[in-house]
């Protein structure tokens, strides 16, 4: 995954200092990737047999009203011209208007993205807090019952259809046991109580000292976040285990043991220290996956996040919204790739 982004084109700009050259090359690559991403999305939207005009005007419109809207949306222009106009607008900070919500795409995304961010962050936290120790213990006690359990828990996580698990979870923990709150981000009558700062309800309510809202929001988020956390736990623990196994088999570990260092020190002080970077990369990837891959969870839990936003927009052929969402998610993905690349560059002696 951590394929180097910068190396390929570095040599094309000889007169600049190396760091600047690398940065520029990286930026160029990012721009090319995102432009490509937009282009593919745009083309999909244009060949899709869903009529965006109808989404605007509805069933009863006359042909004249249809034609007028068709022109207003710029659909009468050639495809490449449409794409050029769109990219030019984006460069000027205008992401267009959503035909589905009638609002600016940028304001839509500013509303839905924090919801996903909040959910994915908590999910990843749960996955890390439980997954890393589980992976380490599984590696240390390789072949033991705890290793088998860790493996099995992980495999179950990989095998469960999340939309089904979500339904069952909702039914059990909300419907029958009443331990958690139902779908949505916050109880209906807390809607609009907290003036947004970051858009993330847990953070905002804590900052504003609205603890009742905080508690309510927490009891809404905990179930979907646990579900997502379970999925990243499966991935994180598995990778942690395999990284740790590699380290524990290395010579320096044997040396350290011979020297009489405590087992705790050997495991956490030496072996675990050495897998930090790899682990951060894995966690970053898991995080990116949750940010972009929680569409079904969002639908089941009526979570107004970006996955659901893109999906519903897509099905209405609301291309401005889809493209806007794609830019956000593509940027995150590329950003995380670059981030893990940089980590390797700075910390991994072999990369130097």
């Amino acid at each position, binding site marked *: 995954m951590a*394929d180097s982004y910068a190396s*390929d*084109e570095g040599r094309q700009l000889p007169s600049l200092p190396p760091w600047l050259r690398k940065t520029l090359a990286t930026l160029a*690559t990012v721009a*090319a*990737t*995102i432009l*490509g*991403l937009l282009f*593919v*999305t745009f083309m*999909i*939207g244009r*060949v*899709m*047999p*869903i009529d965006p005009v109808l989404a605007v005007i509805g069933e009863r419109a006359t042909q004249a009203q249809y034609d007028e809207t068709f022109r207003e949306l710029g659909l009468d222009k050639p495809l490449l011209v449409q794409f050029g106009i769109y990219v030019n607008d984006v460069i000027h900070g205008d992401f267009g208007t959503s035909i589905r919500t009638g609002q600016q795409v940028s304001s839509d995304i500013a509303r839905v993205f924090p919801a996903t961010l909040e959910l994915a962050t908590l999910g990843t936290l749960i996955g890390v807090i439980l997954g890393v120790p589980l992976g380490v213990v599984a590696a240390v006690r*390789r*072949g033991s019952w705890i*290793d088998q359990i860790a*493996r*099995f828990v992980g*495999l*179950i996580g*990989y*095998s*469960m*259809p*999340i*939309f*089904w*698990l979500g*339904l*069952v979870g909702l*039914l059990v923990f909300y*419907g029958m046991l009443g331990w958690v709150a139902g779908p949505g981000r916050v109880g209906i009558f807390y809607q609009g109580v907290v003036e947004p700062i970051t858009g993330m309800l847990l953070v905002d309510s804590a900052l504003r000292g609205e603890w009742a809202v905080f508690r309510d929001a927490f009891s809404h988020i905990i179930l979907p976040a646990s579900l997502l956390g379970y999925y990243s736990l499966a991935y994180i623990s598995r990778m942690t285990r*395999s990284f740790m*196994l*590699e380290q524990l088999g290395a010579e320096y570990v044997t040396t350290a043991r011979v020297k009489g260092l405590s087992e705790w020190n050997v495991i956490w002080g030496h072996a675990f220290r050495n897998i930090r970077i790899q682990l951060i990369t894995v966690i970053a990837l898991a995080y990116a996956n949750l940010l*972009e*891959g929680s*569409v*079904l969870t969002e*639908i089941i839990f009526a979570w107004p996040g970006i*996955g659901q936003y*893109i*999906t519903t927009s*897509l*099905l209405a*052929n609301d291309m401005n919204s*889809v493209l806007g969402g*794609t830019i956000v*998610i*593509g940027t995150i*993905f*590329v950003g995380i790739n670059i981030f893990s690349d940089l980590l390797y560059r700075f910390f991994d002696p072999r990369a130097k």
Partner: protein
Amino acid sequence: MTTNTHGLRDWLLSDEPTSRRQASLSAWYKGWLTFRSNTLAMLGLGVLVVLILAAIFAPLLASHDPFAQDLGARLLAPGVDGHLFGTDSLGRDIYSRILYGARISIYIVLLVAMVAPLVGLIVGTVAGYAGGWVDVLLMRITDIFLAFPRLILALAFVAALGAGIENAVLAISLTAWPPYARIARAETLTMRNSDFIHAIRLQGAGHTRIVTRHIWPLCISSLVIRVTLDMAGIILTAAGLGFLGLGAQPPSPEWGAMISEGRKYILDYWWVATIPGLAIFAISLAFNLLGDGLRDVLDPKEGTS
């Protein structure tokens, strides 16, 4: 008979193979022995075999016509009136639908498992072998597809192509190939400048021949592991598409679509959504167990015991 098997076994386990054929068969057999000692992997294989048999013999095993509606006998509980898993909202027998649904799942998985790795293999080996701007271009395209959220990309393709199983397969394949391309490219890069490729080139072999005859076979094993591990993901994506109404179309008994139909009834008639959910879970778990075991055999550095 016994001596004969013993003979075969000894032949297979011989430390000094006398032919290339014996050596390769021997490697396979040893792999199988390692695999067989992995209980979980065997369990996975067992479940898969059962599911595949169930799919093949669905017409014989089914107790009802999976499409026959009976509005008078809808939402019956499991076991009532000879419906092993109950009936759905249109009175169709869920057990029979699950059996026929297994065919769809296996069909999807097989098709995707053939298409996606092939595309990845071609793109990856060409990029790795050719190098230069071809490599840059192909890898950039790979990155673009990797940067897409998978389900959303699949959704977009299905929306563009129209809903249906074949299009779902195509869409999933289109989203699944980039990792294979990366693997194939990495393998090719390690081989491109190796002595044996040079030797072959000196013998006058063309590029196409080198790639297809000498590089591809060596990429296969890492691709196979990856594909088996991805099978579950493919099934879950297909089910997700079905759940969103973009996979197989009604009245087809695709499991994801069955969950979607049944979720309306989950509070009072849990089996309508739960049984297809368990079916999806069983088949993906089986693939995961199998993939895990295969990895132990083929890729020992990550293995367990």
